[in-house]
């Protein structure tokens, strides 16, 4: 427990990705089995238990701390597990600190009534950091800034292999991952996951640059629409069908209508959409289905999910990934017509005969509510990661709008001494009143290091007020913001939220009062106006 507590403690304060990786790799190298496997499960969110901790902790604290003092402490700390860890009285006779594996075994076999007693004994055996780590472990919500992917990347260092090699077998394994550690350390064969519905690392596309466009041989490419949904993988094996996010998270539970109705052997690549009567709903509708652990009947009816397929990685027991795209596509089409799977269809291939034709189609993507075009080399195998020269995404032209810088916040890590997080606004003119700025978005990118230094200087020289890490600045700097789309939002004061905003240009030359008005942005949402096209 001590090593795990130290790991979590350091991870929670360490901002850098590489530093986090080094901490985890060292832990995996030095911690014993099966403790490290349970730690890995905690870091990747695969722990097999869930205890109703909030109530248990309240009961335990009641015996030790006055209720008013507890409430005031909880209000101040802002986190129940941490409050209990800090306020827990040091026992006169400390108990033996538990091992991570003992905690798991005990929790899995304990009856509901026994859990409180177990936790009590463990807390009595630990220091403040240990208590905090134990409670984070049991609740399963570590919140130390580590994604499952980052944990697997740290793990891959044990074998000096690519984390994708771990992804290939990950969903066929279960904690405490003894076989996996054995393989990584070279003392056991690669775990065999044949027949289980495992996730395969995705192939990703590069943005199409101008240089690529000039040299493009259109005949060598298949063209598809870039759908405005999210990428998913659907895997079937044995008696299970599972839906995975692009990072390999199992999201099956939130999409029962996709995984329940049929069985198949294989792995397919596609786009998750909300679709009603054959018409794709706006991205906003899809968002109602994302990031949920479960789903209600009402949501299922209101926001029916659909997968638009565009590739097959495995069919039956044949791994197709080494085959060219064109062949995989044919096999996908054949599979689809044989199976007729419900709530799925094929992503059509876009016919285009010339580069001019292609450019013309692309120009119309926004009007057609497509996110853009995909260009896939017909001869390319299915390669994990983002290999160069195979797949290109050509996103629809960004919208741009001239905003005024309102607030700036210090960045983190290497940017902690720079005001790099920018909040900008548009003018609103109340009838009869004076124009005022309302914030419409935040951007962190789109400027180079030299521009960042200039921005930082401008912000310091034009600060009106400072609130901790945030400065408000006088209305004097215009930022030309590029963004993909605008949506209605009740969470923003302006009533509008932008998708993917970034600084397109810093308009040092433009007076702030000439920046755009809020209605200009509102028009893009309603679709009344033609998009603002970049010069």
């Amino acid at each position: 427990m001590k090593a795990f507590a130290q790991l979590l403690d350091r991870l929670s304060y360490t901002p850098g990705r590489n530093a986090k990786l080094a901490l985890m790799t060292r832990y995996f190298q030095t911690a014993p089995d099966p403790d490290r496997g349970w730690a890995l499960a905690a870091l990747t969110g695969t722990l097999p238990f869930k205890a109703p901790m909030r109530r248990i902790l309240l009961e335990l604290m009641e015996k030790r701390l006055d209720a008013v003092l507890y409430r005031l402490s909880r209000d101040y700390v802002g986190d129940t597990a941490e409050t209990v860890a800090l306020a827990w009285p040091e026992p006169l006779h400390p108990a033996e600190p538990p091992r991570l594996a003992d905690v798991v075994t005990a929790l899995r076999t304990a009856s509901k009534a026994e859990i409180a007693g177990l936790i009590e004994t463990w807390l009595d055996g630990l220091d403040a950091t240990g208590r905090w780590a134990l409670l984070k472990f049991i609740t399963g919500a570590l919140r130390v800034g580590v994604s499952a992917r980052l944990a697997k990347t740290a793990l891959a260092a044990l074998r000096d292999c690519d984390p994708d090699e771990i992804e290939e077998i990950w969903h066929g394994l279960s904690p405490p991952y003894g076989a996996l550690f054995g393989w990584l350390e070279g003392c056991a064969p690669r775990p065999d996951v044949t027949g289980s519905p495992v996730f395969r690392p995705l192939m990703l596309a590069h943005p199409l640059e101008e240089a690529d466009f000039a040299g493009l041989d259109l005949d060598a490419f298949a063209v598809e629409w870039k759908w405005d949904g999210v990428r998913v993988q659907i895997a079937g094996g044995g008696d299970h069908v599972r839906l995975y996010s692009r990072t390999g998270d199992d999201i099956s539970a939130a999409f029962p209508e996709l995984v329940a109705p049929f069985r198949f052997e294989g792995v397919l690549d596609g786009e998750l959409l909300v679709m009603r009567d054959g018409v794709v709903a706006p991205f906003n509708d899809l968002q109602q289905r994302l990031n949920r652990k479960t789903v209600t009947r009402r949501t299922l009816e209101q926001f029916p999910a659909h997968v638009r397929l565009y590739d097959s990685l495995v069919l039956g027991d044949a791994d197709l990934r080494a085959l060219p795209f064109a062949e995989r596509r044919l096999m996908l089409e054949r599979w689809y017509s044989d199976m007729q799977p419900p709530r799925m269809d094929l992503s059509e291939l876009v016919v285009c005969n010339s580069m001019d034709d292609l450019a013309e189609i692309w120009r119309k993507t926004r009007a057609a509510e497509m996110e853009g075009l995909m260009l896939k080399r017909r001869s390319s195998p299915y390669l994990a990661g983002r290999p160069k020269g195979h797949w290109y995404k050509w996103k629809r032209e960004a919208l741009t709008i001239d905003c005024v810088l309102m607030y700036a916040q210090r960045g983190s890590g290497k940017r902690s001494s720079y005001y790099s997080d920018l909040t900008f606004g548009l003018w609103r003119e109340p009838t009869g009143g004076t124009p005022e700025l309302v914030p419409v978005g935040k951007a962190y990118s789109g400027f180079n290091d030299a521009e960042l230094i200039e921005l930082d200087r401008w912000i310091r020289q034009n600060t009106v007020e400072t609130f901790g890490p945030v400065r408000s600045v006088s209305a004097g700097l215009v930022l030309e913001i590029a963004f993909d789309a605008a949506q209605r939002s009740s969470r923003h004061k302006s009533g509008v939220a932008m998708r993917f905003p970034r600084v397109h240009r810093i308009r040092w030359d433009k007076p702030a009062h000439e920046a755009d008005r809020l209605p200009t942005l509102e028009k893009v949402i309603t679709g009344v106006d033609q998009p603002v096209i970049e010069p």
Partner: protein
Amino acid sequence: MTNSAKFDTWIYPTKRGLYCAAGDFYIDPSQPVERAVITHGHSDHARAGHGRVLATPETIAIMQIRLGKTCAGALQSQGYGSVLQIGDADVSLHPAGHILGSAQILVRHRGQRAVVSGDYKRRFDPTCAPFEPVPADLFVTEATFGLPVFRHEPDASETAKLLEVQRASPGRTILIGVYGLGKCQRLILLLRQAGYDRPIWLHGALVAMCDLYQTLGIDLGPLAPVAAATSTLAGEIVLCPPSALADRWSRRLADPVTGFASGWMRVRARARQRGVELPLVISDHADWPELVTTIAETAAEEIWVTHGREDALVHQIGLMGRRGRALAMVGRDEEAE
């Protein structure tokens, strides 16, 4: 059973600070007054512009460095333990263990004893005299860390953590934010006690106070100003005021590991808020157990709480069967520590 009214006839809070009517003086007033008794040199307690000031010799030296030689009409120093009669009050100063020169102020009036503790702590601090419990009828306490979640770790484990990170990060500067008066010098001595004998580098704002400590006989070992450095100070320990941690000044250093030595570092959200990578729970204020123990030891039946998380402490005082009262003093900078 005593009640506030019993003391209120001769000592009570005012807009300018705690006022002793029996001697016509204020304790740590927030605005200029004719006569002030000052507990210690931190800027939210010691201000310029009073007519006459009474404080320990060290506090007066600190005030003169920070506020100027002529920061008050008259500066009168008084050592720990001796008694001065002011009007109808007998005033003596007793070590508070907070920083060099810090004092609790005992005021006796017609058989009643009021002890105004200023800021204090109970654990060992090599830079100042240790807190002395003074029996009191009325005890005035701070409550900066007045919540049961605040239990400061042993200093030695925190310095060990610092030195471990320093050894493990040879390419990076270890940059620690410290309050310039007290915390800075204490952390330096804690590092010396842990065997660290390399020069410790100082932000310019910390130099004068360290010089004063050395003049007053507290040996801090080799110190050097960052301005004089000819490298990016990779692998070295640098101390700076908290405000400089993430500011342009720190860009000259080698990919700094930023630390902060403060009791607030006990709570993760507070460390993250400041982007602190190396939180060190080293505090010059009493933690919760020290507050509770001290209140019990003074045997006072009436306790006034000046600033901090007074709700919780006043509640606790009630649980201990005493009368607690929150004074909500204006002008106290509870974040600076």
